[in-house]
């Protein structure tokens, strides 16, 4: 318990100090957005054992919505973010309602197919900019009080959002609802026989996960100032699975660590090896999965014999 408090304190200090450590702030913000995305995804995979193959749909749809709202509609930053999250929430509700009735590979296939549908809508719709995506998205300000144009202000805004999402996910996992999710994950027929309408619990988990994934996408759109088709693409859905498994699904810190590793590798390796980067990341993934199945943090937790 004490060790954990110290660990989180150290991480918080690291987060607060990051802009002064010579790291490129936009890059660190991008890391935080993907870390948030992976944490949201983990709520589903790690804590409900549902493997969604189409989580980029929520990430991307929310990014497009926020981008469009603040650019074409002149909405404020916070309103734009909320608008994006609302869309990913509704999308999660619609897709989740269909998917949670199925299990295992069928669940995965439905999430995949419907995410492809979202992808094509984003490709064709008039307000998404098609192949070009949305460009020049302004960061705006927090309710007209704090200007987010500068990297420092934006960084702390994103950091605060990440911290809030991280705390929220911890809370969800340790809530009365989280207890039911755990029971369903451990023994679904038994949970049903105790009178739980398990589909409803799975759907709520799905919607929460989709909404938080959406928030991550919207923030990324604001940080970088653009949204492209790659944000809703199958490749991004694959990346988030990779991040979560690499870092350790079902652990709190694992997905964030996985996101940092994958995004950093993509960033630095692509300069060195170009298109070979996906092959190399794939190879690293295979090696990691073979050597420690539980992911980095999962393996550390096992060695320590407790959770972090």
């Amino acid at each position, binding site marked *: 318990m004490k060790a954990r408090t110290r660990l989180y304190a150290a991480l918080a200090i690291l987060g607060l100090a990051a802009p002064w450590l010579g790291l490129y702030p936009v890059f660190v913000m991008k890391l935080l957005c993907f870390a948030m995305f992976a944490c949201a995804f983990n709520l589903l995979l790690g804590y409900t054992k549902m493997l969604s193959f189409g989580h980029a749909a929520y990430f991307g749809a929310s990014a497009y919505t926020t981008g469009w709202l603040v650019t074409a509609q002149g909405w404020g930053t916070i309103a734009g973010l909320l608008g994006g999250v609302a869309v990913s929430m509704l999308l999660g509700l619609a897709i989740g309602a269909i998917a949670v009735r199925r299990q295992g590979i069928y669940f995965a296939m439905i999430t995949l197919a419907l995410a492809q549908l979202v992808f094509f809508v984003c490709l064709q719709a008039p307000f998404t900019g098609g192949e070009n995506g949305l460009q020049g998205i302004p960061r705006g300000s927090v309710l007209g009080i704090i200007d987010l144009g500068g990297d420092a202000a934006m960084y702390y805004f994103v950091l605060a959002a990440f911290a809030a999402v991280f705390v929220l996910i911890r*809370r*969800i996992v*340790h*809530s*009365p*609802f*989280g*207890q*039911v999710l*755990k*029971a369903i994950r*451990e*023994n679904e*027929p*038994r*949970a*049903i*026989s*105790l*009178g*739980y*309408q*398990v589909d*409803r*619990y799975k759907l*709520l988990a799905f919607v*929460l996960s989709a909404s938080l994934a959406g928030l991550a996408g919207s923030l990324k759109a604001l940080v970088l100032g653009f949204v492209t088709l790659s944000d809703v693409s199958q490749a991004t859905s694959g990346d988030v699975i990779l991040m979560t498994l690499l870092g350790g699904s079902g652990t709190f810190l694992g997905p964030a660590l996985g996101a940092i590793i994958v995004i950093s590798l993509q960033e630095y390796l692509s300069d060195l090896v170009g298109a070979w980067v996906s092959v190399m990341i794939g190879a690293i993934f295979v090696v990691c999965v073979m050597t420690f199945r539980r992911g980095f943090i999962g393996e550390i937790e096992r060695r320590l014999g407790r959770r972090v």
Partner: protein
Amino acid sequence: MALLREPILETRDLVKAFKGFVAVDGVSLCVRRGEIHALIGPNGAGKTTFFNLLTKFLQPTSGAILYRGTDITREQPADIARRGIVRSFQICAVFPHLTALENVRVALQRVVGSSFQFWRSARSLSQLHGRAIQLLAEVRLEDWASTLAADLSYGRKRALELATTLALEPELLLLDEPTQGLGHEDVARVAQLIKHVAAHRTVLMVEHNMNVVASIADTISVLQRGRVIAAGTYDKVARDPQVIEAYMGTASTKLAGSG
């Protein structure tokens, strides 16, 4: 005596056909309020399938299920539990990585209606601990409250399963081989436990152990190849030539031996 009581659960011509194979073949069974009703029969007779039909884990091919006079044939499994019919499983069903206390609490939690609260701390569930400990005490597990279910012995797991089931205050308990896989002492203990909890409830149980059946069951139905071949008190059923035939001599000695 049991025959005078009102029926709580009735099935009418219940049939379940799997591809080209009829596992439950026109079963009409009546469970009366307050009794311990044992369902016995050789392996593969269709007992578990019958339970799955009653709890809607399987849809019947034809026939009807009535609970307290209401047709429940088309309901969902979770609705069945809400009506007060709670089952256990042939393979012991606990939540392994929850503590014994948490296992029971999960059942209590649904009833108090906090199960969708994702924004509250699980500490808000501590109001249920008193009742949970009480239930654990009923099955003599109070000293294991904070042990993970996975770390309990098999007999204690079965007891925990029973405590979790009781948390829902079911009117009708469906127990699928509650003593299977238990050591000799545990069998007697669980049997007494069932008798104890059945005091204000109705129990329908699948049971292979004839000593248990003889000592606690009020009524027995014998299932063979999906059909009920005999029903009644232990003495009546044990003398039934068809039953003796079904158990092919081996069981008849077992039946007589324990009678």
